């Protein structure tokens, strides 16, 4: 039937071997044969489970600015990067932070246990100011108004009852910090050691020299963290923030300072937390469901369509191996709807085969010989397969767009696996099934069509 049958089978085996390699390993490594210890290629292909399958936190952040304010893409990207750095520093792995739409950021933290710590740390703007309060020594927790403008300012605490709030001068901001570390202060409790940039050091040296005896408040997001007196000029640009810190809060503040302040304030507009038990339960159940469904389908195809059915079963298994490998290789997160999308695309793959086999049977009944019937089956069924799958892909694309705008990752996962599955299924139905069927027909040379094809 094919002159190049050997080549085709070779190609299929090659694709299958590659797919299985990715399927069965957590990391694929290609060592360089000429240079020991070096690698030509490495890639982490660990399966990524979504929040619904392993539990975790998903949070949707929105720029906390009036609706008419234009939020630039740059600002969103910067904010995204900062959120990513801050949360990574908390030691949560496999975080996924993405800009969704024009003014939203979606963050996913699979397996996260301390969800509160994450929520706290991403929400704070993290604007550190060194504020000259003169002779006034504000208490920790006081809200100050400063002359450094930002998007949102909390209501200032009136200094004493009715008086209009004083606006204090900000000498410099956290931008001038070069490095930040958690250290121990004189009293032995946690504090934050910082080193300023050379520019910052100059400002700091000048100010401290000129204001000995005055107060220099250290203010985070307009709230006073500590308000030390300036005892001496500090010329070397090094200093320490002490306050009422625990080891954790000192560390959290250090993280915020290290990665800078958010260019735009963010507020949480959506939170989803899935406990680990629910996730594990769902994973178990959906695996069982997928397995049972596949077994029934494989049995049905084999019994109803006989030889072609068995061939289709083989190509469906190859299809599953390829699809799973693609998901792992490109780091798609597997979610419940994702698995559903995958199963449905398996249905679409089977549909292509069923269309072809029904056509072959029809042609056989019309008295054509086997090779004619098989050829006709593919040619005639092709328009239906092609057009019907395109409609599915159209819907998937629209779903994907919808999902990305709203950070609705469940919808995204579903549409992505569905579209990819349909794409891969076209290849398996047309190329693999046909090649394998040709191989079987050549090997067995069946004569009893009734028995082999179930017509």
């Amino acid at each position, binding site marked *: 039937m094919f002159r190049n049958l050997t080549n085709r089978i070779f190609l299929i085996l090659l694709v299958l071997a590659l797919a299985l390699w990715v399927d069965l390993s957590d990391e694929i490594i290609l060592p360089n044969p000429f240079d020991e210890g070096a690698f030509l290629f490495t890639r982490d292909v660990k399966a990524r489970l979504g929040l619904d399958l392993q539990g975790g936190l998903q949070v949707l952040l*929105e720029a906390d600015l009036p609706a008419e304010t234009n939020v630039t893409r740059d600002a969103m990207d910067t904010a995204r990067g900062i959120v990513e750095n801050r949360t990574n520093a908390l030691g949560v792995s496999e975080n996924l932070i993405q800009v969704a739409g024009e003014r939203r950021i979606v963050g996913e933290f699979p397996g996260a246990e301390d969800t*509160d710590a994450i*929520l706290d740390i991403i929400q704070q703007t993290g604007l550190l100011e060194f504020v000259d309060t003169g002779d006034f020594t504000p208490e920790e927790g006081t809200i100050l108004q400063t002359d450094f403008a930002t998007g949102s300012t909390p209501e200032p605490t009136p200094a004493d009852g009715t008086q209009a709030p004083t606006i204090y001068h900000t000498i410099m901001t956290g931008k001038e910090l070069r490095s930040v570390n958690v250290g121990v202060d004189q009293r032995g409790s946690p504090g934050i050691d910082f080193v300023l940039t050379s520019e910052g050091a100059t400002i700091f040296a000048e100010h401290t020299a000129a204001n000995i005896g005055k107060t220099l408040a250290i203010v985070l997001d307009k709230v006073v963290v500590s308000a030390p007196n300036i005892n001496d000029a500090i010329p070397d640009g090094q200093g320490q923030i002490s306050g009422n810190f625990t080891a954790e809060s000192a560390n959290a503040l250090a993280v915020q300072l290290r990665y800078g302040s958010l260019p735009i304030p963010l507020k*949480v*507009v*959506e*939170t*989803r*937390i*899935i*406990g680990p*038990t*629910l996730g594990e339960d*769902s994973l178990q*159940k*959906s695996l*069982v*469901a*997928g397995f*049972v*469904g*596949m077994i*029934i*389908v494989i049995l*049905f*195809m084999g019994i*109803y369509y006989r030889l072609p059915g068995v061939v289709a079963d083989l190509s469906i298994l190859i299809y599953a191996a390829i699809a799973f490998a693609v998901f792992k290789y490109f780091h798609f997160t597997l979610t*419940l*709807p994702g698995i*559903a999308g995958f*199963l*449905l695309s*398996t*249905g679409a793959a*089977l*549909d292509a085969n*069923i*269309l072809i086999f*029904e056509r072959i049977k*029809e042609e056989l009944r019309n008295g054509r010989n086997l090779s004619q019937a098989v050829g006709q089956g593919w040619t005639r069924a092709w*328009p*239906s397969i092609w*057009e*019907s*799958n*395109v*409609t*599915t892909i*159209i*819907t998937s694309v*629209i*779903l994907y767009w*919808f999902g990305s*705008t*709203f950070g*609705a990752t*469940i*919808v995204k996962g*579903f*549409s992505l696996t569905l579209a990819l599955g349909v794409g891969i299924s076209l290849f398996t139905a047309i190329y693999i099934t046909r090649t394998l069927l040709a191989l079987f027909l050549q090997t067995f040379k069946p004569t009893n069509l009734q028995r082999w094809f179930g017509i």
Partner: protein
Amino acid sequence: MIDILSKRYLYFLISVLVILPGLVILGTRGLPLSIDFTGGSLLEVQFEEGKTPQPAQLVGLYETAGIDDAQVQTTDSGTLLIRSSFLENEKRDSVLSAMKAESGSDVAVIRFDSVGPSIGSQVASRAALAVAIAALGVVLFITYVFRNVPNAFRYGFCAIIAMAHDVAVVFSIVGIGSLILDWQIDALFLTALLTVIGFSVQDKVVVFDRIRENTHIFRRLNYENLVNHSIVQTLQRSINTQLMTVEFLLLAMALFGGVTLQEFAVILLVGLFSGTYSSIFIAAPILVLWENREWENWFGRKAAA
């Protein structure tokens, strides 16, 4: 050959009987929109055995926190599901610690969803837009694919009517589900709906394709017989693909897939079944009805059943 098309008015009646009850429920009770679309929050918690507080106690705790619309529901797995308006994370924490104090038990958060009100309404309008664009894209595609067939537009139009039929069936199921099983329309439902639309059209394309092919082969045959012939030819495929493969997989999902997937799977199951049904019993009959201009007889004589 089986004569499928002659009983077409009976099929229309069956569809109406399936669609109406659910839509009436939705009409009287309103759409059961979830917090994905309305904004609000949902907290599922589990207490240690024997320490689960009464729902009224929890409502009280919420009221203390300043939320007066909390509704508590007990699930099959012994957890409590509390729906309320949008809860900020700080409020959630204070409610949770109040629960711990009140019950003297450890409280495990199984699930927490909280959607801001502005997000919810935007999701709803974008979702409607997504469905509309999907429908339009599909009709344009069909009209393009059938451009060489007489009255190509009719095929696209009939596919849309049948698609609307499937959407109505899905909504009807949700209506019935909302009455009996407290189902809600959420983002996952939307996914199911769009899938039904995609596959519904996929199925129509297969049947229409056969009609197109047969138009060139059986030039003498009248249109009704031609369509009937095409349906019968694709019948085996329709049954096998939809009722066996897709439905097997979904049935497995509905039976073994856990609570999260059940509603999704059942809606897909019914919706995809409806997609196959409507290709044969709605879309094709309407093509014939249109060709015969049967509406001219509807009021003059009894329907030509």
